[in-house]
């Protein structure tokens, strides 16, 4: 008998393919696991509609579960409720900061990020709030590009959505 909790435990360890310091559970992509007889159904939700990492995550889930003796795996894409950065745990945000990515603000009610003036945005390297947006669109769909006007380093900001 496969236990839901142990399956969740196993796959929650899968790192995000693009930001490997956090795993898919911390990122809020892994939504639910269901066990029906010998089949495991995993619900995941995409961060952005076109996030190319989703296919990779799906493959990772299937192959990791196979390694753990689960043959029948179905990965469901769920779209509602839509993914939000509010689902990132505080722990995950701290990991992002250490990795050099400024984490998103606490609440998506703060729409100031879209105007390029997110509140409390600090340079992940020197902690300065003296920062400037370079581009709303960064190296991946979930990030924007900033630079620090004090330490002069460019950095990624995890967009608040």
């Amino acid at each position: 008998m496969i236990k839901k909790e142990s399956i969740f435990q196993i796959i929650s360890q899968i790192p995000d393919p693009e930001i490997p310091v956090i795993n898919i559970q911390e990122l809020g992509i892994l939504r639910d696991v269901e066990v029906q007889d010998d089949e495991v159904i995993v619900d995941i939700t995409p961060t952005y509609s076109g996030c190319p990492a989703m296919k990779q995550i799906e493959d990772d889930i299937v192959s990791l579960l196979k390694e753990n003796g689960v043959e029948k795996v179905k990965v469901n894409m769920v779209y509602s409720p839509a993914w939000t950065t509010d689902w990132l745990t505080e722990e995950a945000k701290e990991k992002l900061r250490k990795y050099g990515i400024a984490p998103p603000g606490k609440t998506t009610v703060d729409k100031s990020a879209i105007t390029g003036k997110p509140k409390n945005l600090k340079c992940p390297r020197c902690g300065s709030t003296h920062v400037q947006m370079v581009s709303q669109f960064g190296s991946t769909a979930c990030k924007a590009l900033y630079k620090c006007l004090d330490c002069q380093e460019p950095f990624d900001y995890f967009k608040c959505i």
Partner: protein
Amino acid sequence: MNKQEALFKYILRLADNDLILGHRVSEWTGHGPMLEEDLALANIALDLIGNANSLYQYAVKVEGKGRTEDDLAYMRGERDFYNTLLAEHPNGDYACTMVRQFFTDAFYIHYYEDLKSSADATLAALAAKALKEVNYHLRHSSSWIERFGDGTEESHMRAQNAINELWRYTEELFDMNEVDAILIKEKIAVDLAPVKAKWEKTVNDVLVRSTLEKPQNVWQQRGSRDGKHTEHLGYLLAEMQHLHRAIPGANW
């Protein structure tokens, strides 16, 4: 036409618009005027094509004839596509690309806001998701309209030319037909009349801020709701579908 057929056509209309516009925008990848814009457009194209993919997956489920999302994207001819004439318009210069994007984003921002409360749970969920992304797209495109309009003489002229060129495709965005009538009754589709009023306000506000003029009394070109397109779509499809048709089932 029954409800299921109407829903299939309605989803296709949305999916086609995202796919065709996404493909157009992706043509800039590697050719952007600067690195940040290259990244921005690649990101926007990805959002659009990703959303198209989800919509096509839903469309084939609704249709229930065993087709796949790839069949819909790659195996239909131009008369079976329902994207707007605006979406298929060639990129032109950067002003033209940004005006096309701005007109579209200004439509989506109000359209998705309403579609979010659709009685169809899948469409409502996809609308909520897309709306978050369109917020960023609109911010990006409208800020370029402002910079072009209120920029140099050259950039102002190019933006105004693009607006004049593309204005003839804007009223079609709000055309409704039998499909809409059936689905509005079921509270699935969005009534486009109020969306049009909101679109006009958004566009007008940005144009005024950008010192650009709204064209008056322009002949409006339409037809995409019936699969009638400008000559540009055929060329786009030929390029986009060529590989899939030349080597059926190609995989990598």
